[in-house]
C-alpha cells in the first residue's frame, strides 16, 4: 500500500518538474496534478498547417445567447449572496493584440465559503441560497468584458493530504477561431496558497504564471460598494486572415 502523498512530496515534485512549453501553457503531462497522469496523450500532437482548416473559423454568439442578469452573479436570486462584492473586468485580445469582439465569456466559481453548487462537491462548507456562481457576457467592440460577483473562497481537494486550491474564478473564452479556444482560471493577487498548488504551478514559468493573476485596481473599486480587479486575457492560436475585420 502506498503512503498518502504529503505537501512535502508535492513540493519536491514541483521543484523537480521540467520546464513547460515556451508558450507558457502547462505540459499536459504534469504528475504533481495526479488527475493528469492517465489523461494526457503520450504521442506527439500532429501539426496542422492547412489554411482551409475549419478550426480557423469558429462559433459565433449574439444577443440572443446572453441575458443582462448573466454578468451580475450577485443578482440572480431573491437575496444577496454572502461575501466580498467584487467586479472583475478586462479585455480579451488575440496574440497580435487585436480585441476579440462580440465573443462569449463564461465564468463559474465557488461561493465565498469555497463551495461549488455541484452535488459532487462534498466540502463541508455552506451553500449560499443566493449564489449560483455562473456568469456569461459578450465582449464589446474593444474586447472588454465585466462581471460583478463575490470573491470565491479557497477550498480543499484530494490531490494530496491537506491540498487546498487558491481562490480562483474559472473562465471560458472563444476567439475568432476555434483554435483560439481557452479555458483557464483567474487567481487573486497575493494568495498565500500559490506555492502549494500543483494546478497553478503546472505553469512552470513565473512570468506566465503571473498572467493568471488579476491585479487589484483601486480605480475600479466603487465607494461603499465593491472592490475592483482587472484581468486581461490573450488568446493563443491562429485565425483565418479574412477574419481580421471581425464579424
Amino acid at each position, binding site marked *: 500500500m502506498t503512503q498518502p502523498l504529503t505537501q512535502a512530496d508535492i513540493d519536491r515534485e514541483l521543484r523537480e518538474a521540467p520546464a513547460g512549453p515556451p508558450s507558457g501553457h*502547462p505540459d499536459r503531462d504534469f504528475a504533481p496534478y495526479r488527475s493528469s497522469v492517465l489523461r494526457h496523450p503520450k504521442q506527439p500532437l500532429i501539426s496542422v498547417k492547412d489554411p482551409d482548416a475549419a478550426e480557423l473559423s469558429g462559433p459565433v454568439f449574439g444577443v440572443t445567447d446572453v441575458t443582462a442578469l448573466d454578468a451580475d452573479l450577485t443578482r440572480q436570486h431573491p437575496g444577496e449572496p454572502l461575501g466580498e462584492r467584487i467586479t472583475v473586468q478586462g479585455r480579451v485580445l488575440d496574440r497580435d493584440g487585436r480585441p476579440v469582439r462580440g465573443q462569449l465569456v463564461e465564468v463559474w466559481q465557488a461561493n465565498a465559503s469555497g463551495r461549488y453548487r455541484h452535488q459532487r462537491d462534498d466540502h463541508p462548507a455552506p451553500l449560499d441560497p443566493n449564489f449560483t456562481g455562473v456568469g456569461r457576457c459578450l465582449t464589446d467592440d474593444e474586447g472588454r468584458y465585466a462581471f460583478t460577483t463575490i470573491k470565491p473562497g479557497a477550498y480543499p481537494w484530494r490531490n494530496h493530504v491537506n491540498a487546498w486550491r487558491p481562490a480562483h474564478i474559472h473562465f471560458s473564452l472563444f476567439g475568432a477561431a476555434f483554435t483560439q479556444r481557452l479555458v483557464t482560471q483567474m487567481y487573486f493577487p497575493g494568495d498565500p496558497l500559490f506555492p502549494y498548488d500543483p494546478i497553478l504551478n503546472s505553469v512552470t514559468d513565473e512570468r506566465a504564471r503571473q498572467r493568471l493573476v488579476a491585479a487589484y485596481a483601486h480605480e475600479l473599486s466603487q465607494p461603499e460598494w465593491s472592490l475592483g480587479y482587472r484581468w486581461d486575457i490573450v488568446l493563443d492560436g491562429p485565425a483565418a486572415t479574412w477574419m481580421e475585420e471581425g464579424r
Partner: protein
Amino acid sequence: MNPTPSQTVGPFYGYALPFPGGGDLAAPADPAGITVHGYVHDGAGDPVPDALLEFWQADASGELRGAPGTLRRDLVDGSVIGRHGVDFTGFGRVATDADGRWTLRTVMPGNGYISVCVFARGLLHHLFTRIYFGQDPFLDTVPPQRRHTLMAVREREGVHRFDIHLQGEKETVFFDFG
C-alpha cells in the same frame, strides 16, 4: 503578445458550461439528421465521466457559417430555449455522462469532418481532434497505423460511433494548429 496559459476545466463545470440541447445541432425534424456518439476513455481504458466535448462543423453544404443562437435564452426566466432550428449554428457542447458517453445529433458536414475540442478534469490544456466519416486526403498526412482513430464507424444508417482515447494503445490523434 504572450498568451494567457490554459488551466484545467476541473470537476465542477457541470452547472455552468453544459446547456440543454447542447448536442442537438440538427433540427429535430431534419430528415438529414445523423447521430454521432461514443465514449471518452483514459489511459487505463476507464471511461471519463467528467469530460466536456465541444464540436464545430460546417453545414451540409460545407459552409462554415457559424450563426449565433446556440444558447438562445428565454427573456422571462433566462433559461436556455435552444436553437430556433432554422439557422445552423455549427457549434455543440456535450458533457460525458457517468458512463463516459456522449451523443451528438447533427448533419453530415459538407467538408467531411467535425472538429472536436476535448476538456476534462485532469487535462491541463484542451485537445483538438476531428471526426471523419470517410476517406479524405488529409488523412494521408496522419501516420497510417493511427489514421483509424479519426474515423467514425458507421453502425447503421445515420448512426456513427466515435470513441476518444486520451492515452494508451488506442490513443486518438490530437492536433496542434500552431
